[in-house]
């Protein structure tokens, strides 16, 4: 029999016992809907997480340190490279070199120092760090009170919530870490902080080299190595208070006060590396303790890390952590898929039952068809077509149903998030491939369910079937 004829007969037969077939189709729909709902939740959560992680700046950043820095992250790897004393320093020229590597968006020096900050004549000691303009998109600043730096050179500061609490003399109560940032920010925004710091100043008469000096210098420059350290003050306007911690990966060295990067560079704050490198070159050229290298996408991290390592530096990234998160979502998807499929398994049994019932009911009809020339294959195909039609219909309805369930849950959760004053989120995604996959899967499951009934109908003995009343 030709396909259009098969389809026509199948649809006609389905319409003949419309209640039973509708119920079976609804069973399939519910199964598909639960599968779609579960999978789209998994996909949505994964997309949300990777969106979040991308914004956090954790997964697209490589921290580059000199091997000369004996305090750095990857101790073990140092055994493989050149000895620390013979390896390169991280200065402006290497920064530019790294920034020009393929797939690198930017390489920013990490400037951080512990210093004294006065607020309303009360001194506070705190870690200060510089932020590049690109940090603006970091999701730590998503719920920023106030605004980001007006320019990269503006004498402005952004405070982390914990320091804001300290300035206001509020100590967070145990367990109540959800202090409202808006309340903290209100009295602080626009106020002035006075930062006292140690400035490195080239000693008078010292030749100032501006050219990059990559070649390891030896003792002959020793005589010239000299600079003075001067205490300075800088007034900073508080423009923002951040709720989250943009430096959570830094652990104990994370800062609570942030300055624009260019401003911080212009201050020439004395860095620990200055002391270490004093024996090498007495230049005004800054030597960085570490660089934050932003890469185009997390997938390119490994390649960039390898290149930078070959240049003779140490690197660190949270790539491995990101890998295990990806793995977690894969496992989550599988689990959600299995739960979703359970409902479809029930629907599978429903289809088998419906079609077996249909055989009993249409036994005589099958006998007639065989008597007038239907082959086993025709009968088998007819039952397959009925199962397939129910599968496709159930699949389409199920996808729509699953999508609707998702929308409702998304809406409900966003209402909840709004009440908790969180920004709305899309943690529900029904990509087109899932729509196609769900309908195809439903179709295939239905065909599989039709396998036994169709075979049974095809093997029916026409003489017996015709005798059946």
């Amino acid at each position, binding site marked *: *029999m*030709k396909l259009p*004829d098969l389809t026509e*007969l199948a649809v*006609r*037969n389905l319409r*003949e016992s419309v209640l039973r077939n509708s119920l079976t189709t609804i069973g399939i729909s519910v199964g598909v809907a639960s599968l779609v709902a579960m999978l789209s939740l998994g996909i949505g959560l994964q997309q949300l997480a990777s969106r979040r992680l991308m914004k956090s700046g954790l997964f697209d950043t490589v921290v580059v340190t000199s091997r000369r820095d004996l305090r750095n992250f990857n101790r073990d790897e140092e055994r493989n490279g050149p000895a620390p004393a013979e390896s390169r320093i991280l200065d402006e020229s290497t920064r530019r070199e790294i920034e020009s590597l393929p797939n690198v968006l930017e390489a920013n020096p990490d400037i951080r120092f512990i210093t004294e900050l006065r607020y309303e004549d009360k001194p506070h000691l705190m870690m200060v760090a510089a932020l590049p303009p690109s940090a603006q998109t970091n999701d730590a600043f998503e719920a920023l009170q106030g605004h980001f730096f007006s320019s990269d050179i503006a004498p402005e500061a952004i405070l982390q919530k914990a320091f804001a609490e300290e300035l206001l003399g509020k100590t967070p109560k145990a367990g109540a870490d959800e202090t409202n940032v808006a309340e903290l920010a209100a009295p602080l925004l626009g106020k002035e902080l006075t930062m006292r710091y140690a400035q490195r100043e080239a000693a008078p008469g010292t030749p100032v080299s501006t050219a990059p000096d990559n070649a390891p210098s030896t003792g002959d420059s020793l005589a010239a190595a000299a600079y003075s350290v001067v205490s300075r003050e800088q007034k900073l306007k508080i423009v923002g208070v951040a709720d989250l911690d943009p430096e959570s990966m830094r652990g104990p060295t994370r800062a609570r006060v942030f300055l624009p990067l260019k401003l911080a560079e212009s201050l020439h704050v004395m860095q620990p590396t200055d002391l270490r490198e004093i024996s090498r070159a007495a230049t005004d050229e800054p030597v960085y303790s570490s660089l934050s290298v932003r890469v185009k996408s997390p997938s390119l991290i490994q390649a960039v890390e390898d290149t930078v390592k070959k240049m003779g530096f140490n690197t660190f990234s949270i790539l491995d952590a990101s890998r295990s998160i990806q793995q977690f979502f894969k496992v989550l998807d599988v689990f959600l898929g299995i739960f979703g499929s359970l409902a479809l398994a029930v629907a599978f049994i429903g289809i088998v039952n419906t079609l077996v019932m249909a055989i009993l009911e249409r036994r*005589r*009809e099958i*006998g*007639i*068809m*065989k*008597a*007038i*020339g*239907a*082959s*086993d*294959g*025709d009968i088998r195909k007819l039952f397959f077509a009925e199962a397939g039609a129910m599968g496709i219909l159930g699949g389409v309805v199920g996808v729509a149903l699953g999508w609707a369930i998702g929308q409702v849950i998304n809406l409900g959760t966003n209402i909840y998030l709004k009440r908790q004053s969180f920004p709305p989120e899309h943690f529900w995604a029904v990509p087109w491939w899932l729509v196609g996959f769900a309908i195809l899967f439903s179709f295939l499951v239905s065909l599989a369910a039709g396998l036994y009934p169709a075979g049974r109908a095809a093997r029916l*003995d*026409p*003489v017996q079937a*015709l005798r059946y009343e």
Partner: protein
Amino acid sequence: MSSTARVSQNDAPAIRVEQLCRHYRMGDTLIRAVDGVTLNVRTGEFVALLGSSGSGKSSVLNLIAGLDRPTSGSVIVQERDLARLSREDLAKYRLHTVGMVFQSFNLIASMTLAENVELPMRFAEVNRDKRNDLAREALERVGLQARMNHRPSELSGGEQQRAALARALINRPQLLLADEPTGNLDSHTGTEIMDMVSDFNQQLGMTVVMVTHERALAERYAQRLIFLADGKLIGDESNAAVAGQGATEDASPHRERL
């Protein structure tokens, strides 16, 4: 008569049944529904299989129709041994060579008459336009053109059997097999149906094998009467009243009398 002339030229039997047996096992007992039947039916002949219920006449018809397979012996139709055909080929045989009508009409209740009639052509993969034309033509032939879009339940028994006849003829088969075609009809309607069957036999040259238990009906229409009892052939006689109308003289090797 033209059909007589044509048949005379072709003496090869349309159906050759040799030592045909069909045994069933029911529990511990062996039922010999058909037990060593041998008979020939010539092309264009109208043969009635007579016998009481349980005589095996319907079983013989089912074996000739290719609905059932013999336990032993053979049914040879147009030089093809049905016992040796695959299930697929047997279905093709039923589709193209045989048309069947039944006592209970066996129309499909969910389909209109036109759909019922064109159903065999769906299996034969005839295209839709041709199917529609042929179905209309066939229904016109049996006088049902006005009822084409009615369902069987909306029709009288006679009309249903006429539709079944139209369906049996739609693929232009050489054999028309009728199993008690008038069994569910009153005598007037029965006569109407039998006239049609007889018409097909004489005008289209179709070979007809009809199972019936009504001897009067058989004598009125069939050229040959074959009697069965307990699965065995017990009589095979030419019907002088109609013999001249269809095929030539009875040439069956079994000429036992009742």
